[in-house]
């Protein structure tokens, strides 16, 4: 059993506002093994992006980690100063965001952005950096890589731009990539190309990827394990087939039912009435209980921890002591 690459325990992230503290993440715990692709799924406001930001040290102040710990390769990274992050960010932990247009500097050529990143993290000559940059571009599937080094971002199409962003992320030879909605802004046919690319890179390089998305389909295609988030907590976590096929948490089941599938058309989609609670008004006990079709006695008063539920672990009293 290899030691986990990333270990998150009891993570609590708080955003102080004029109306009081907003708890964006409440007691979140999970681990990632090296080379594993973990999907963080949830709807807007669930806390998946905040989790990614906390791990990459990119929480927007005044948001901060108010409790718990994050360990990368055994070393604590949740309370590092921005200066202490320099050797880590971009090098061992890289990030990919949703919009390639804003992630790349429109004024500099792609080659310049790549070589700059390379030379920041590794001692290399300009010529060596250029060669490596071309290698990275072709590894991410950009044809004619060497000649494209001198192009600017706007000269690439959307899918190609995202590949450039991935190449930039790979430049530091990271062990973990936090990818926040990397395919959401892309067309469907291009999405498939990018998810296939991420999967291939992970397999070839033993690269761990935290894939944050609201799209269960992307998760089903790409991930090994999935964590489903709700109102700042993890509702369920487990291998992807189990989460998609045999979910243990009523919210996960509701999500699966609400997605229209290509396979079998239903007359009515399963509807979870109501909406995710605002972070300023999270219900007591289990956060999902007001909307849960299977709510019963303990749900409103006691908050469930993640407990075994078949092949997954779900934060739901239905699975207490192995009932289901």
């Amino acid at each position, binding site marked *: 059993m290899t030691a986990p690459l990333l270990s998150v325990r009891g993570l609590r992230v708080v955003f102080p506002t004029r109306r009081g503290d907003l708890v964006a993440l409440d007691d979140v715990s999970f681990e990632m093994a090296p080379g594993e692709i973990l999907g963080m799924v949830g709807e807007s406001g669930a806390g998946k992006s905040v989790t990614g930001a906390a791990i990459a040290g990119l929480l927007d102040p005044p948001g901060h980690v108010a409790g718990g710990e994050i360990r990368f390769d055994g070393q604590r990274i949740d309370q590092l100063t921005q200066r202490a992050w320099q050797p880590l960010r971009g090098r061992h932990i890289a990030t990919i965001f949703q919009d390639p247009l804003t992630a790349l500097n429109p004024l500099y050529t792609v080659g310049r952005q790549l070589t700059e990143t390379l030379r920041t993290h590794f001692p290399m000559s300009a010529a060596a950096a250029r060669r490596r940059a071309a290698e990275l571009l072709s590894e991410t599937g950009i044809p004619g890589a060497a000649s494209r080094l001198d192009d600017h971002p706007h000269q690439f199409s959307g899918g190609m731009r995202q590949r450039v962003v991935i190449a930039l992320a790979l430049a530091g030879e990271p062990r973990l990539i936090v990818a926040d909605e990397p395919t959401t802004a892309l*067309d*469907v046919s291009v999405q498939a190309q990018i998810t296939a690319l991420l999967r291939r890179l992970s397999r070839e390089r033993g690269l761990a990827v935290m894939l944050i998305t609201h799209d269960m389909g992307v998760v089903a295609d790409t991930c090994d394990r999935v964590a489903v988030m709700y109102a700042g907590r993890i509702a369920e976590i487990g291998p992807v087939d189990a989460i998609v096929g045999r979910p243990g948490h009523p919210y996960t089941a509701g*999500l699966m039912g609400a997605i229209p599938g290509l396979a079998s058309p239903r007359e009515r989609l399963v509807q979870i009435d109501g909406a995710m609670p605002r972070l300023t008004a999270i219900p007591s006990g289990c956060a999902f209980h007001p909307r849960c079709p299977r709510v019963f006695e303990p749900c409103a008063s006691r908050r469930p921890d993640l407990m075994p539920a078949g092949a997954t672990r779900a934060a739901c009293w239905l699975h207490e002591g192995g009932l289901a």
Partner: protein
Amino acid sequence: MSSPVVEAIDLSKRFALPDAWWRRALGRPPRRALQAVADVSFSIERGKTFGLVGESGSGKTTVGRLMVGLHAPSGGAVRIGGQPFGPALRRQVQMVFQDPYASLNPRWTVREIVGEPLREQQHGMGRAERHVRVGELLAAVGLSADDGARFPHQFSGGQRQRISIARALATDPSFLVCDEPTSALDVSVQAQVLNLMKDLQRERGVAYLFISHNLAVVRHVSDEVGVMYAGRLVERSPAAALFARPRHPYTRLLLDAVPGQRRDGAVPPQGEMPDPFDPPAGCAFHPRCPLANERCRAERPRLLPADGGVQVACHAVAEGRD
């Protein structure tokens, strides 16, 4: 077979890009033009939904705007209830937009927003009567009449889309264009809104043009589907047939690319949508098509009937090579 409520007949739209002022002053024809939509035809019957599918740049949004009169067609026509679309028919046609945040004026109350079509188009209605009607509309979409006094920012994305739908239904239109109405919503909220739209369609017999890039959603709501690529319809078919047996290579590519099907070993699609300023000669899809031949590179295929009520624009299909 009732006559269709909505007809699009050979719709085309060409956007001329502004040139240097001296060229315009001299009256020269514009140098660059974008053919956003070309020769698109379809019809929708009462209470039915036509799903228009395509990726970004396919022209589907432009078709939606042509159907409601936000753009004037460069060619072809739109007919509502058999009549050519004009100002008199405005109250028959409405639209629900994609972005729940930009489609409602942030400075207006919900009541003013939903009541605006009534104010503009139904001059006989007094203020009190409008008030009542807005309350009815809000209730019909699952909100309360009191919500009329609030401002859009006080509502969630899903609720704002409901407000947009209430506004769209205010004048009891016979035709509603829905431009990616649920793309910006979470999955569970999407389910609520789609169910609501289906219920309203059943109650009121409205015809929907449902524009989306999400094939699964389109499958769920549509009776007939049109697939667009580079401004043209490449396949038009009853929904069940399209998803069971897609004919056009692009339709197949799209269906294969839908995430979540776990078809390991499936070849991911290559290439991207062509540059709209410089489309390939012949069939716009040929650079990406596994079945392309010489004819495909030279001659653009027309929409021709294939079996099963399906229409496909593809030489390979017409020649039986697929």
